[in-house]
């Protein structure tokens, strides 16, 4: 009986902690001042938040159904692989778009060279067209009145 009480306490603690971490991670999006700072919230807070909840889920089903539930580990694994990659791609896009930083940002962004941006490797069409909106060339020329 005591075992169940302890398990319940641990699971409840993990759930609450997970909720708090996920919440503060999202709150960071609101509070920080520029794009790059805002990235820190979701790449970290949510990872541990969801991690805590998954551990709680594993414990809960292992204790109540008396068999090992470990498939949540898969979610954790994929999350740990994908979250940093997404963060990296977002940050890189931000750099390429020359997003502004808050005043007081230390250090400098070294100028991105052509080969870092990928212009030397990846050929792009000179005039990219929007997938469904008609381009300017296709619009009918207005008749002069």
């Amino acid at each position, binding site marked *: 009986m005591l075992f169940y009480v302890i398990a319940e306490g641990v699971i409840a603690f993990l759930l609450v902690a997970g909720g*708090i*971490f996920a919440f*503060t*991670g999202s*709150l*960071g999006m609101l*509070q*920080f001042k*520029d794009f*790059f*700072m805002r*990235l*820190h*919230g979701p*790449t*970290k*807070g949510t*990872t*541990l*938040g969801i*991690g805590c909840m998954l551990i709680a889920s594993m414990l809960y089903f292992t204790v109540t159904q008396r068999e090992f539930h*470990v*498939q949540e*580990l*898969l979610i954790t*694994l994929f999350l*740990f*692989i994908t*979250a*940093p*990659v997404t*963060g*990296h791609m977002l*940050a*890189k896009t*931000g*750099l390429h778009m020359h997003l502004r*930083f*808050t005043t*007081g*940002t*230390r*250090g*400098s*962004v*070294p100028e*991105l*060279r052509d*080969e*870092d941006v*990928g212009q030397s490797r990846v050929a792009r069409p000179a005039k990219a067209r929007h997938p469904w909106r008609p381009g300017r060339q296709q619009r009918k020329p207005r008749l002069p009145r």
Partner: protein
Amino acid sequence: MSRLLPTPTLSLVLLVVWLLMVRSLEPGQLVLGAFLAVTIPLLTRRFWDPLPRVRHPLKLVRFVLVVLYDIVKANVQVSLLILSPRREPHPGFLEYPLEVKEPLVITLLANTITMTPGTVSTNVRLDRSSLLIHVLDMEDEEALVREIRERYERPLKEIFEC
């Protein structure tokens, strides 16, 4: 052996992932998982660049534990920073000179940096000479570079011996 299993680690990971997905240890699933673990690397062999092998699995385990501990620490730090609006963080960019050149190891290092205290990796030079990192609260630049080097890059280098 090496012709049938060119990448033993990948095969093992595939087998474990398969068993976790079907949630059973029945012999049939074991056989099917083993079949997949052998055929998928063989079919996709030409897609992979030669990957560095894990030379010291024990050090890898230790590294994973260190990173997990740091993730928890990072979360507490970032949460405190978010929840205390009075303390203004000093963000900054930092160019970290890379010692390793293997793409897989650089990927692992960049991922680790993103998951750990207050740092997000933003850009890798194509010639793999440096990694640009955004730091949420930068106090001492050199100490940070030293910490990343000692805590993450050196162990990764030892694990893969490159």
